[in-house]
């Protein structure tokens, strides 16, 4: 019967089986080999060399959240790509930024976006922000095998919670552990420095504009001390990707807007290389 239904060009039974609204569930039934987590990896010695994406930062402000990332991908001591994009819209009200193995991360984001869109189309309503965050958790967990071979993917998820009317940030570890961050968060190799910078600069009454400046400052500090994070590249006009999510939805700042922020940050740093100073007491 199964062979028969396929040969007629008819939709196979799996397509017409009611029940799941998840695209990943459907894939694991119908074509499990297409799921990243179901692939068999041959045993390898040492670490596989592949481009790695680095620093992602996020900060909330009253009325929304900003998520930003630098543009560098590295492979060992080599800069693999100068203009990689690591921050993506997940759907209308959320975005995901990725640190870790670039190839796997981009695939994960593509599947994640599709997972949310698929649910929305099948159910006619969006997943809750928590639901989306949990879905991402599952996807990271299914990558654990790869992570143990050095191909980890660690995203940062930010979104506007329509039910609670505020921006929220979720961070993850390689095992898929999820935790909600208050105020600001960072992931990737430069995250320690970025977090340090935001710790001193963050306030909970920032405007949207100030919040975008904050994340660019944090990325600058990360690039300052971490060789794998790229700073604003004025010569090539490559600036960080900055996205804002509010009740009006996801918006990626244009190149002109980010270049303006990056340039003003850069200008001040010419006088004060370490950036703005916080009060001692």
């Amino acid at each position, binding site marked *: 019967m199964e062979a028969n239904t396929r040969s007629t060009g008819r939709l196979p039974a799996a397509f017409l089986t009611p029940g799941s609204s998840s695209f990943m569930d*459907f894939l694991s039934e119908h074509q499990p080999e297409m799921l990243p987590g179901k692939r068999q990896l041959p045993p390898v010695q040492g670490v596989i060399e592949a481009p790695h994406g680095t620093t992602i930062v996020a900060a909330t402000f009253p009325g929304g959240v900003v998520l930003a990332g630098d543009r560098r991908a590295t492979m060992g001591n080599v800069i693999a790509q100068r203009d990689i994009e690591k921050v993506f819209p997940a759907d209308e009200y959320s975005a995901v930024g990725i640190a870790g193995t670039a190839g796997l991360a981009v695939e994960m984001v593509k599947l994640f976006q599709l997972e949310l869109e698929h649910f929305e189309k099948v159910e006619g309503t969006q997943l809750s922000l928590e639901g989306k965050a949990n879905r991402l958790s599952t996807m990271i967990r299914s990558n654990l095998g790869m992570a143990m071979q050095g191909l980890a993917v660690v995203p940062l998820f930010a979104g506007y919670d329509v039910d609670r009317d505020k921006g929220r940030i979720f961070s993850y570890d390689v095992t898929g552990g999820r935790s909600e961050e208050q105020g600001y968060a960072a992931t990737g190799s430069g995250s320690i420095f970025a977090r340090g910078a935001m710790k001193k600069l963050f306030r909970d009454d920032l405007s949207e504009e100030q919040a975008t400046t904050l994340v660019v400052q944090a990325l600058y500090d990360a690039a300052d001390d971490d060789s794998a994070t790229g700073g604003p590249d004025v010569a090539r006009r490559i600036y960080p990707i900055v996205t804002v999510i509010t009740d009006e939805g996801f918006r990626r700042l244009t190149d002109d807007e980010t270049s303006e922020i990056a340039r003003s940050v850069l200008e001040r740093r010419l006088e004060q290389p370490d950036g703005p100073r916080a009060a001692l007491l």
Partner: protein
Amino acid sequence: MSTPFYVSPQQAMTDRAEFARKGIARGRSLVVLQYADGIVFIGENPSRALHKFSEIYDRIGFAAAGKYNEYENLRIGGVRYADLRGYTYDRDDVTARGLANVYAQTLGTIFSSAAEKPYEVELVVAEVGETPEGDQIYRLPHDGSIVDEHGSVAVGGNAEQISSYLDQRHQDGMSLAEALKLAVQALSREPNGGEREIPVERLEVAVLDRTRPQARKFKRITGRQLGRLLEDNGAETAAEAEEGEGEGEK
């Protein structure tokens, strides 16, 4: 044990077709029209949650008349088909023609298989193009045939009468409001020649709008926006005041 009666294949097929047609005609009609900026779906639907029209993919919409559980299954199958195809290749590689083919094959196989009850559904698959010339509308009757339609199409209920009404009046390049009004006029016609009024809250309207900046062109039109578009239709405006909630639906 009794010997089954002999039924000629012709008779069997006619019976099955008759069965499906009756089932489809039992529901309310819905119409799909081209307008200047895209394709609009209009139908009478007392439910706000159980939709007759839905999004399949970026540029592709779906409309169905007939039995809910059957077309809902086909709709989800279509969403899965489109999403899988887009994931495997690229978003541009998902086409209404491909989807219509799969639906035709599915409906055709079910229709001619003696082991299954024929589906009592009639589908419309529409894809909005970059220009009106690129728009595609396919009508898929219960038996797996496929009809490439232009301008306007009606399915379900007294579809024949409505189609001929629309054929005479539909023009290329109509505005959305004009198309909507024409559709409501067509849907209000009774089979016996009379007319009845369809209150605006019983209308389900969706568009595939090629001018939308997002990749996903499908959008539902509800509440106040719908009321505004139908404004000079007189009686239809009363209900709009309390609505407008659904307007933000993406």
